[in-house]
């Protein structure tokens, strides 16, 4: 299926352009992930927060950096660039890890999962509800990127080393004032 969304690698993606973005740097303290996320998401206008969906999606990306990238090594930093307005949410997160080596495997796993969903074959889908690697532990749910690749409709792009990810979500434009078409 051509409409199955993929994680991409593109060092030169325009999503890595940090011009005009805010920046914060965090230690890799697992206990602080939701706090770090709140520090970032507080800049977002309420119109795009969708209650707490934006917060949740940002926390997953920060968690991946803290846990899978920096292996919760408190001395390693997570760098976050972010920008929000009423029509978009843009985020770049960089860790000091070795990078997401399993990206291609993930894409092919997700493709099989989506095909199960399209065919409503939930018995077969059982095999694809959690993406595991040799580094996964029992607390890894292995489903965060399934939602991320759908939520971030402007793309989920990794750099060449795959230790830096840029994501973009665009929101429909809100009309202001009188709608002339309806008059």
């Amino acid at each position, binding site marked *: 299926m051509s409409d199955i969304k993929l994680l991409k690698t593109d060092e030169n993606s325009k999503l890595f352009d940090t011009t005009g973005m805010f920046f914060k740097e965090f230690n890799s303290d697992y*206990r602080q*992930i*939701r706090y770090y996320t709140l520090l970032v998401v507080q800049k977002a206008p309420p119109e795009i927060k*969708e*209650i*707490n*969906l934006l917060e*949740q999606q940002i*926390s*997953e990306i920060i*968690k991946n950096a803290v846990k899978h990238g920096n292996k919760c090594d408190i001395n390693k930093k997570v760098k976050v660039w972010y920008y929000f307005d009423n029509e978009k949410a843009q985020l770049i997160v960089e860790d000091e890890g070795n990078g997401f080596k399993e990206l291609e495997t993930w894409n092919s796993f997700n493709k099989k*999962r*989506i095909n199960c*969903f399209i065919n*409503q074959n*939930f018995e077969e*889908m*059982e095999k694809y*509800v*959690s993406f595991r690697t040799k580094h996964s532990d029992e*607390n*890894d*749910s*292995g*489903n*965060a990127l*399934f*939602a991320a690749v*759908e*939520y971030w409709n402007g793309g989920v792009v990794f750099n060449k080393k795959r230790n830096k990810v840029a994501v973009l979500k665009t929101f429909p434009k809100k009309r202001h004032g009188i709608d002339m078409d309806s008059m």
Partner: protein
Amino acid sequence: MELKVRKYSNTYIIDVNGEMDLYNSYKLKELVLKMIEKKIGQFIINLENVDYIDSSGIGALIYICSTIKKINMKLQITNIHGSVKKVIELTKLMGYFPISNSVEDAISKIEQ
């Protein structure tokens, strides 16, 4: 997150209150496993008072659902709403999870 268990006929209803996140979702998993050990076989997980769920919460629900399916026991998840529903939809699990609109609805599906 707070978990309360009540019983209706042979069905145990777990009312989840609060946020299901990376710090606490394991508690729900542990509770259900303990209940299965005690030979309980009919569950409703009521998410009426859950307004936030992350991938760990989703992971806990997947684990529970998968475990219960394997041993041919019964499960319904009820009252998903707001961003919880959105996250389940984004993860494409609406058909995978046994979902009911209300606890009453879930009871009638389980007890039939």
